[in-house]
């Protein structure tokens, strides 16, 4: 039996139709729009003014708080404007607009392909490089990585988990990264492991990616000969099941431990980082290269050409689509991310962010929601919930406005994975109803804590 998380989960069709497409470099667009808020936490503060010339990799915004991140120019050229612009969802966000001129990089950035396996011993210097490189978690949450790698005093990390599950259907950018940049990912893993001071690191990969598992095992075998710093890193094959890559589910699958409600992974001795983040750490620490690009899967049965592209941060989505053959006529919905947790895009003129992992095109038929019927009490939603919640009950309580009972039934633990809504044969929009109820309960819990602290 391959390992997996202990409760719930669903098996949507894999649909990884772009898995055979090697990562190709997207030509630099004429203009990029770099958003100041690309991470969880405070937006960054601009360091440049309109009219300034910038180079690739030059910091153009600095952290706006403790939990925040540097942002770098992804191109060379002139700052044309610093102004609000509509993001993916159609909301206004401050963006730095840069007109591209040439492709001149900052001094000190190593743009060669040479693999650097020597890791410096000074962890403080490494953390600084990660911070200055604007590295954020690229697995979805975009939490500043240097913060996550500095566990609060008194908490001890026992296991670093590198998330290579890519459990969402359609997505293949992490898979391609493992295949094509496996060495860099492993070195990045060793760096993070050293910073955390842990002996063990596990790279978890779902068993629908046997090539990636085999490749990383080979890489590990050869790197172990180079330095003892690669000892203790292992690959774990995990069962293909969504949401295997959910942080809490992955910890359960790899370590057999469960993070208590309201707790953090570090409470059970775990730190989880994603494959793309490990690569970004490698780039920042070994190559002095900040996050200026990332790989994006562009896919969908209706889309003319499947691709995994290396895209400069701030590239307009429409530029990517035009490069690959234009918007298909029957695409009804474009999603940033996967079909289970990704967000529907309202505005194709918006630009990519550091954390943009995929553009998925679905037809009306693929994404149709059938009319809602009565709950037949089949319990399929509860069987699917990876948090062990009872969505049918939460749905009923939310519609009745019973906030206290919602809290008693742990609505605040919902990870919004969508398994319940996906499974419900009566097509009840369970998560649509649960999401706001969760927000309400979390708000109440916060208010209660604040009131207690004030006493």
């Amino acid at each position, binding site marked *: 039996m391959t390992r997996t998380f202990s*409760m719930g989960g669903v098996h949507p069709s894999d649909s990884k139709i772009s898995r055979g497409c090697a990562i190709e470099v997207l030509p630099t667009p004429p203009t990029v729009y770099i958003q100041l808020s690309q991470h969880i936490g405070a937006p960054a503060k601009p360091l440049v003014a309109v009219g300034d010339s910038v180079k690739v990799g030059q910091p153009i915004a600095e952290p706006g708080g403790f939990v925040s991140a540097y942002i770098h120019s992804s191109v060379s050229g002139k700052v044309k404007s610093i102004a609000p612009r509509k993001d993916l969802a159609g909301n206004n966000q401050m963006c730095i607009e840069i007109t591209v001129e040439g492709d001149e990089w900052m001094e000190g950035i190593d743009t060669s392909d040479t693999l650097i396996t020597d890791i410096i011993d000074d962890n403080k210097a490494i953390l600084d490089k990660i911070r200055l490189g604007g590295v954020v978690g690229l697995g979805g949450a975009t939490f500043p990585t240097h913060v996550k790698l500095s566990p609060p005093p008194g908490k001890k990390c026992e296991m670093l988990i590198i998330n290579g599950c890519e459990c969402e259907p359609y997505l293949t950018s992490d898979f391609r990264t493992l295949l094509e940049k496996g060495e860099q990912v492993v070195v990045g893993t060793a760096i993070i492991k050293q910073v955390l001071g842990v002996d063990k690191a596990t790279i978890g990969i779902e068993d629908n990616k046997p090539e990636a598992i085999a490749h990383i095992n080979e890489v590990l075998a050869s790197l172990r000969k180079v330095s003892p710093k690669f000892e203790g890193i292992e690959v774990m094959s995990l069962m293909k099941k969504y949401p295997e890559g959910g942080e809490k589910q992955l910890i359960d699958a790899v370590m057999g431990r469960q993070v208590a*409600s309201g707790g953090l992974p570090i409470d059970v001795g775990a730190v989880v980082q994603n494959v793309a983040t490990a690569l970004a750490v490698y780039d920042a620490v070994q190559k002095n290269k900040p996050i200026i690009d990332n790989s994006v899967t562009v896919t969908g049965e209706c889309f003319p050409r499947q691709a995994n592209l290396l895209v400069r941060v701030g590239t307009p989505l429409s530029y990517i689509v035009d490069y690959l053959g234009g918007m298909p006529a029957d695409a009804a919905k474009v999603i940033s991310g996967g079909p289970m947790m*990704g967000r529907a895009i309202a505005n*194709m003129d918006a630009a990519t962010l550091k954390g943009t992992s995929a553009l998925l095109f679905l037809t009306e038929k693929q994404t149709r*929601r059938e*009319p809602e019927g009565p*709950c*037949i009490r089949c319990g399929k939603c509860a069987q699917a919930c990876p948090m062990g919640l009872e969505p049918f009950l939460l749905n009923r309580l939310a519609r009745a406005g019973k906030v206290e009972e919602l809290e008693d039934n742990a609505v605040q633990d919902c990870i919004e994975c969508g398994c319940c809504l996906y499974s419900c044969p009566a*097509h009840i929009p369970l*998560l649509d109803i649960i999401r706001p109820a969760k927000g309400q309960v979390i708000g109440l819990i916060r208010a209660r804590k604040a009131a207690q602290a004030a006493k």
Partner: protein
Amino acid sequence: MSRLLVSPSPHIHAKESTASLMRDVVIALIPAVLVSVVFYGWKELLVLAVSVLSCLVLEYVITRYMMKKENNTLCDFSAAVTGILLALNLPYTTPWWVVFIGAAVAIGVGKMTFGGLGQNVFNPALVGRVFLLVSYPTYMTHWEAPQSLFGVDAVSGPTPLGIIKEGLLQGNTVPQLMADNGLNYGQMLFASVGGSAGEISAIALLIGFVYLLVKKVIRPHITLSIWATVAVVSLIFWLCAPDRFTDPLFNLLTGGMILGSCFMATDYVTSPMSVKGGIIFGIGIGFITMMIRYFGSYPEGMSFAILIMNATVPLLNMWFHQKKYGRA
């Protein structure tokens, strides 16, 4: 560029729908329906047709004209399931108008008075059946020599459970009754005698049950806990007094045990949501069934046992929840 659809995640849905699940239940019942028609002939076909048609028509009329729902549940196969289950719970000799009354009670009282699909507390087909059992006992326990479609010789007579109950009252012993009446397990497993149509072949029903398990329409815990309870309870009594009490295998194979435990007790709407609740529900059904069979005045107790346990489901749902992640 056309306007893009913007709605919250998830953006895809599993293929299963209420209709596809109910359709799977209908498919799972096909072997049992075929066997019963082959053995009991056109009369059984008539019972089935009247039952299913009445259920469908009544469902439509009530949802459309009395409850004034636009979106009626006719196309979701749930009424068809009720119709087939009711028919399989009746003797093939039941007159058409009695079948119709059963269907009317099943859909009208069992399902719609609670608010329709998903709201009912009791299994509608069983409500219909028990109503007929109480109101028209003559038709429900009246047997004629069956005319088989293909000339298979079927024997007339009361159900095995009825034979034993009667015989015991007259002072006979179980082994003697089994031998005198030619009751054997092979017969019960493949094609039994007497009783309602659905009791005829345990194998046909089990094929359907396995189909439902494989298609993941239902989980096995309720059915298994019923079987285990029936086996344990009857084993204890049988070991103590083999003359007075029937053995476990006999009890598992007769009296609608398979039909009830595989298809009626596992009904989504009227069974508990959690596995723990389901196991207790199953134990309750098994125990009550055996108490009625051994000590009650009706020869078989499955229908009553399921209905009684149906009533406890809201409580079981309140008491038992599945384990949550990261919580004790």
